């Protein structure tokens, strides 16, 4: 191990020359379109996953609210689903799912032991995801999307949450 603070150049990364070839005079537009089209081919599968997870989020939220013994596991499950959805929503035309999922994960990460108010905030996020899914609110969602996000922001601000 080198001396603490000592900076030493070790070498270059393996060269990718010979592995990749620059196609002179051509730009990547067509390639990117082809790749986006392949993503589009997975959209139906994503919509199925979103429908399934929206239902499961509702079920787990109900467990968290009604069953103190199952609350920790239910919230953990909600966090996992919200984490996956935030990573996928925007790719498939559902940026609101990514946005709401991201806020939900970040909020859960601030919670030590969920209070009634914490559960209400989680519930608001879960319901928002369910609305976006059931009403097929794609893109920014226009007025409905803005209203949903504004309502969540209002709830978070009232709780003094800093995410």
């Amino acid at each position, binding site marked *: 191990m080198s001396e603490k*603070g*000592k900076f030493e150049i*070790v070498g270059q990364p393996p060269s990718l020359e010979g592995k990749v070839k620059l196609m002179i005079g051509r730009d990547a537009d067509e390639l990117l379109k082809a790749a986006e089209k392949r*993503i589009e081919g997975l959209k139906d599968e994503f919509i199925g996953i979103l429908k399934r997870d929206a239902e499961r989020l509702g079920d787990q939220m109900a467990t968290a609210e009604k069953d103190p013994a199952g609350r920790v596991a239910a919230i953990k499950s909600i966090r996992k689903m919200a*984490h996956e959805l935030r*990573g996928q929503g925007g790719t498939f035309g559902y940026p609101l799912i990514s946005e709401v999922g*991201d806020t939900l994960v970040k909020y859960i990460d601030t919670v030590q032991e969920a209070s009634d108010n914490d559960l209400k905030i989680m519930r608001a996020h879960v319901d928002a995801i369910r609305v976006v899914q059931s009403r097929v609110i794609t893109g920014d969602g226009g007025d409905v999307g803005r209203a949903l996000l504004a309502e969540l922001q209002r709830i978070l601000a009232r709780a003094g949450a800093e995410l």
Partner: protein
Amino acid sequence: MKLYDLSKLAVLLVDDNKFMRSTMFQVLYGLGVRSIMQAQDVPSARGYLKDFPIDVLITDLDMGTLSGLDLIKEVRDAIESSNRLVNIVMLTGNATKANVMRARDAGVTEFLSKPVSAQALYARLVEIIENPRQYVRAGEYFGPDRRRKADETYNGPRRRADDQE
């Protein structure tokens, strides 16, 4: 953006979510990559890293028991491995400043936020191709130089130990 033929690149994709792996596979395939290995966790990734030369490792951050950060540290610490200098792209839906700094300090080459797009992934690959960074050892750190580009116009203090010599 310039067009590159990526068909000869070998990419290892590590993500615990099957659908996310499918999505990334389709994007990579659409970008022309033909050698795409997939692993669902760090132990599975170890097998590929041991047996195959990898050009680009794309790993999720949040994967349960062993994270993408653990994987990066393993790769960079594996002195005998031919893949120690592999280009690593960290993929995460939780792109907080703290996570970006942790990934950088573990030895990541590029950072890619979820949700992904073909353009964003292609841009990271092009960055790796066009601007390879030298590997450095600095104290406990081993990995790509965390100073991306030398700024010829920089006139401020020079803080590296070597700069003082």
